[in-house]
């Protein structure tokens, strides 16, 4: 089996184990963050592929869908859920900003490595900093949405 398939399997396994660590009393927050992320990634992911900015040569459901089902449907929504569940609300602004930068940078670094060494993703008209900015925007939008969803009116 190709290395790419092993990576996809590990991504599913890792994402699922992250879900297992989410405390029971934060499950509803995690669900809202997970689903809200999907609403964004499904659409934007398709637009980006349609415009030919990115390609995912090795992917699931390859014959019907040319975006990364694994990343957009499962892995990134799980990460976004984790981001919201463990968000440092009670800390200062600097720590909150650092939390954002840390998440975004780690995700971008992983993507850049995967792009360079595997056929899971290929940048066509794309740069690492576009990934960095778009992930940051997605996390921010979902975070604001979650705050609104659970806010008292």
């Amino acid at each position, binding site marked *: 089996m190709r290395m790419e398939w092993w990576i996809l399997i590990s991504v599913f396994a890792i994402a699922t184990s992250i879900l297992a660590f989410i405390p029971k*009393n*934060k499950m*509803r*927050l995690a*669900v*809202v963050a997970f*689903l*809200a992320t*999907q*609403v964004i990634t*499904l*659409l934007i*992911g*398709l*637009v980006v*592929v*349609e415009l*030919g900015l990115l390609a995912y040569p090795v992917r*699931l*459901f390859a*014959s*019907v*869908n*040319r*975006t990364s*089902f694994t990343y957009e*449907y499962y892995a990134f929504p799980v990460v976004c859920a984790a981001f*919201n569940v463990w*968000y440092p*609300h009670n800390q200062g602004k600097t720590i909150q900003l650092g939390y954002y930068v840390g998440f975004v940078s780690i995700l971008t670094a992983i993507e850049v490595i995967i792009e360079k060494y595997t056929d899971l993703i290929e940048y066509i008209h794309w740069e690492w900093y576009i990934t960095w900015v778009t992930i940051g925007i997605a996390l921010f939008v979902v975070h604001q949405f*979650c*705050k609104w*969803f*659970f*806010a*008292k*009116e």
Partner: protein
Amino acid sequence: MLLEHWIFLATWVLGIIGFLLFIPRKDRRVGIMAFMIFQALIWLCDMPAFKFNLLSAPVRILPKATNLALTINYIFYPVLFSIYYVHRRVKGNLWSKFLYFFVWISAVTLLDMVIERYTDLLEYGFLTWYGMWGYISFLFYVSQVCCNRFFKDKSSPQAERWATE
């Protein structure tokens, strides 16, 4: 412009207007949750359905990126389900609940069949009209169970305000 393109435009516009119009302000969170759950489910189920040629979408948005019917999966059905869920019979006997479900599913299936027959937006492959009826029942039922579970023993989603504090 093709008839199908007008339908796309109409679906996006009417979908958003329909959501705002038919979901009362106080139920907006419930409506959005129903919308998101249905979207996640139909996206997952349509992947194998399209892969194994149960149905296809000859005319679609973003045709190079996906073979799936994006407009139908992303806005059309999720908004319909959301309206269905918010206005469902919470009280009342089993019979009236069943009738509500049955009428909705049948109306939605009929709409789907009209779309299939008179436009190129959808094309049934191995799927028959009663297969579609079953498929839509399945999607509505599972989504409803998930939504019920999410809102279980919480009078309102705001009850968990502490969650983000």
